[in-house]
């Protein structure tokens, strides 16, 4: 009976859409759940690795959520963490090999952090909190939604850090060379932006702006 009701629910019903859109703002993995912050600090110096990282996480989280959701009734509860790890690790190795084959430079820049997607709290968190209790389609939506929320913050931070720290975007110089003091101009890049602490401050500023605009996030008292 209950399964029939579920099947009748359309693929993009309000509820399912919320799964996709909630993690973007109200339930953002980085700024609200405060998960996956380490990678947000480490690989956001430039925009390109941040985008690649977001796509990698999107693949791992989307596919992982579906797999876990499909086998959720087969996993013995006591060893579920190990099973989850096996799934993530396999997917991450796929991503890693893919990057090495087709985007070697970026893979070098991301270095250990591709491998560390395995330990990214967002992934295990979504497996535990969502995929183990929901059907594959919903789990997929949730995975993609969270990856988008994560990627959005990552890319925003990387945007500001690369623009202000190196004067470039995606490796292309956007601030005119003639502006720089060395060339007789007045401008200088902000070296602080290249340090990880500044990433933390930028994430903090994003949280500040988000909370100022989204009153739902403000705790009582």
């Amino acid at each position, binding site marked *: 009976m209950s399964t029939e009701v579920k099947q009748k629910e359309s693929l993009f019903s309000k509820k399912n859409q919320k799964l996709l859109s909630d993690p973007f703002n109200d339930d953002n993995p980085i700024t609200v759940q405060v998960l996956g912050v380490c990678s947000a600090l480490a690989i956001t110096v430039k925009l390109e690795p941040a985008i690649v990282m977001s796509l990698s996480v999107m693949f791992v989280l989307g596919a992982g959520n579906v797999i876990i959701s499909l086998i959720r009734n087969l996993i013995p509860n006591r060893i579920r963490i190990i099973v989850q790890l096996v799934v993530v690790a396999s997917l991450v190795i796929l991503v890693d090999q893919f990057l090495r084959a087709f985007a070697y430079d970026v893979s070098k820049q991301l270095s250990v952090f591709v491998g560390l997607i395995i330990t990214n709290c967002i992934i295990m968190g979504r497996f535990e909190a969502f995929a183990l209790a929901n059907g594959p389609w919903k789990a997929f939506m949730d995975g993609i939604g969270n990856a988008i929320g994560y990627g959005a913050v990552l890319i925003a931070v990387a945007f500001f850090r690369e623009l202000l720290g190196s004067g470039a975007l995606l490796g292309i110089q956007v601030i005119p060379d003639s502006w720089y*003091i060395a060339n007789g101009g*007045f401008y*200088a890049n*902000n*070296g*602080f*932006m290249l*340090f990880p602490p500044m990433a933390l*401050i930028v994430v*903090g500023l994003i949280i*500040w702006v988000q909370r100022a605009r989204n009153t739902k996030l403000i705790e009582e008292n």
Partner: protein
Amino acid sequence: MKFVQNIFDKTRPLVEKEGKRNILYPLHNAIETMAFVPDHTTHSGAHVRDAIDLKRTMITVIFAMVPALLFGMWNIGRLHYGAFGEESTWLDNFLFGALKMLPLITVTYAAGLGVEIFFAWKRNHAVNEGFLVSGLLIPMIMPVDIPLWMVAVSTIFAVLIGKEVFGGTGMNLLNPALTARAFAFFAYPTWMSGDQIWINTNGEEGAQLVDGYSGATAMGELATTVGQGLNNPATETVMAQFGSGGTYSMMNTFLGLIPGSIGETSALLILLGGLFLVFKGVGSWKIMLSFLVGGLAMATIFNAFAVNEFMGLNPIHQLLIGGFMFGMVFMATDPVSGSQTETGKYIYGFLAGFFGIMIRVFNPAYPEGIMLAILFMNVMAPLIDHYVVESNIKRRSKRLANA
């Protein structure tokens, strides 16, 4: 001043509740209370009034800083003309320095007050005097030739991240002036360290720098001796400058006749300001004293186990160079970011001085160890206070149990 008041009086109906521009009321109120004494009084209840308030505390610190500031202006001119080997009277020196210093001060106040007024408007409170001291401290701890927009960016960062994030004046974890300097130091290292920036060398057309001119600070020179070992002939010329009669002799560093950040060079005048602060009860003598003892302790330990000339420097001399004195008198004593408990003040001051000398000597890449040490101890101050309070509670409850 009457016409200024007229402007406020005329525009007030516009911004009051029924007015067309009532969204601007907090802004109007903020600027008005800054310009004039507010005319509203307490409506109910009894209130204890004290002669000392935020405004008076802040202005006392400003007074204490004035001697070092004026000396800094004079020193800018002296070093500038000295670099070209030109004759100059003290008035030339002073005027040259004042012309360099005024834009710095103006930009700092404009940037800092801009942020303050914006938040006063958003948060609907009056602009308070919190930025008064920071705004004068920031130009005093910058090198003379730093581009003005860097000062502005650093100031905005300091007020925003150092202060407003935590809730504004009185809530800040870090000293805002030092936050500004730390930001500038990490963001624009080329304009904040090295041996090119401490003396203004933009002379007239054709002017030549004198032979043997060096723009390095005392610590820049000392940093070159690290790794050379003690009594190495290679370091002899550097160390000769620290002997009597040299550029960085004990007397010169005490009087402040050396290159450095604008206000930090004259130990004598800074100490004078410090005495004034202690005498007025605004600055904590406990922090200053323990800061001095901490720095002296570390310098003495270094001196005893010296493996290079920097470590082997006379402990007193070590305290006279760099920002040690300025940090001790004006930075560490910040009543908000420092320790609050009386015992805590000793620990806080001692460790700040201790680590300051340690960072400076062990890592010459960070010549201003004092800045980093004070910021570090700012962060630790609440922890120190916590344990001081805990130990007080424990001791008293034991006393109660034994009674």
